[in-house]
């Protein structure tokens, strides 16, 4: 009742519907209950277990993504997520360069939809003249047709927080370990260490 009264007070007769919708929007929470998730699943569930509500599914908690626009957007929307943080969330940038296993890959708006595996290396986010650089351990990058790019990494640090002296020291250490390694697993461990440190070194110097 109060909502009706409020909307009657707050809206002009000409824009009743749109204004009411605009007013109501801030109250809606993260969970969009309007999408009932997978309908086939809910149907099947209700048939088998009528006395329990069907569980939620992840799509019901997601922010809906926009459909592929007909014209090329000018900006790329980037989500850069780590297990412990969302570094960039729905941020609009000009370009990102990701370290794919096949080589550095620049992503601009309107890129071909791609799934790319990432290797340890430099991720740079270009926003105007501002370039932000991260060193990431590994992960995946998804580029969607609607100029959305999702970058997932297990670990990432801004490049200016890395100490070059420590990197050099680590590189020497692992090179030594690699030459003295006897078993296969030791060798593989040392090789990973050398790879990561040389990538880090390259990112710092190059």
């Amino acid at each position, binding site marked *: 009742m109060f909502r009706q009264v409020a909307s009657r007070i707050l809206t002009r007769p000409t824009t009743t519907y749109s204004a009411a919708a605009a007013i109501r929007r801030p109250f809606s929470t993260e969970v969009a209950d309007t999408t009932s998730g997978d309908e086939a699943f809910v149907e099947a569930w209700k048939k088998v277990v009528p006395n329990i509500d069907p569980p939620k599914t992840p799509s019901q908690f997601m922010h809906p993504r926009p459909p592929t626009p007909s014209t090329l957007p000018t900006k790329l929307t980037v*989500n850069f997520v780590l297990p412990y943080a969302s570094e960039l969330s729905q941020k609009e940038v000009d370009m990102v360069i990701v370290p*794919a296993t096949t080589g550095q890959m620049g992503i601009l708006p309107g890129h071909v939809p791609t799934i790319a595996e990432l290797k340890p290396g430099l991720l740079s986010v270009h926003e105007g003249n501002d370039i932000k650089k991260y060193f990431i351990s590994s992960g995946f990058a998804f580029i*969607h047709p609607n100029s959305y790019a999702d970058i997932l990494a297990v670990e990432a640090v801004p490049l200016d927080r890395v100490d070059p002296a420590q990197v050099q020291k680590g590189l020497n250490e692992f090179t030594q370990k690699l030459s003295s390694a006897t078993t296969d697993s030791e060798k593989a461990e040392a090789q990973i260490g050398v790879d990561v440190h040389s990538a880090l070194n390259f990112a710092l110097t190059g």
Partner: protein
Amino acid sequence: MAMAALRREGRRFVPLVSSPNPVNAIRSTLAPTEEQVGLGVRSISTQIVRNRMKSVRNIQKITKAMKMVAASKLRAIQVRAENSRGLWQPFTALLGDTPSVSVKKNVIVTISSDKGLCGGINSTSVKISRALYRLNAGPDTETKYVILGEKAKAQLIRDSKKDISLTMTELQKNFLNYTQVSVIADDILKNVEFDALRIVFNKFQSVVSFLPTTATVLSPEIVERESEAGGKIGSLDSYEIEGGETKSEVLQNLAEFQFSCVMFNAVLENACSEQGARMSAMDSSSRNAGDMLDRLTLTYNRTRQASITTELIEIISGASALTG
């Protein structure tokens, strides 16, 4: 000196003055000493109520302390659960959400807590898991359980012991981090054959409410099959795949990474719901203990008063009987 002595005397005489039958009044004060033997029998003992009150008070202290502990743990874990929410979203955007997919080998990963006293979260996940089992039951399908946490294990082992393929407990003994969860995910991937993993957990919504949720992770073969058949993840075919020798290799890596990421979020959400549920359960039980204590105090006081009244009645009626 003299005044004090007089006052003492005066006090001695007051009963005599105030009472209509001074002689009997003195006698009646002496009477209980003669009757003390039978006193315990007739009056109601308050000892039991007092003991009960003490134990309820102790329980209340414990539940209050548990609530405090849960509240402080919740605050720490809630931040991490919320930060990990970005992790699974790219996968759902890419691979879609496919709870209705029908495959041969279903594995239900039930996430629960190790400790009880946290409301209904464990029985909810068990109920949802059982229902998913029934939902996916069929003549040529096979469904297995993988259980994380002591409580779901205790409940599911009763009726579906033969379907449990793996259990893991003491998840929260150490600090939950991505490395630990990916080791667990790796263990599950190595030891269990699956076409679809259905992860059942409680998503944290607020301190008092949690939402039972199921996330589905498909094996690389099924992803390929489904994307070729069109349907929900049909758009996957339009994606170019970079890295790795073959498409299936990348899909394999992708599925494994997806599982560890979804698991990480699920474990954190469930731990968060657990603390929230424990907090509200302990809050309501301390309130209940308080209510009980109030009732007991009332009973205690009433009994005490009743026994005093009985004694007074005895005295007075005894006195009046003598004079009568």
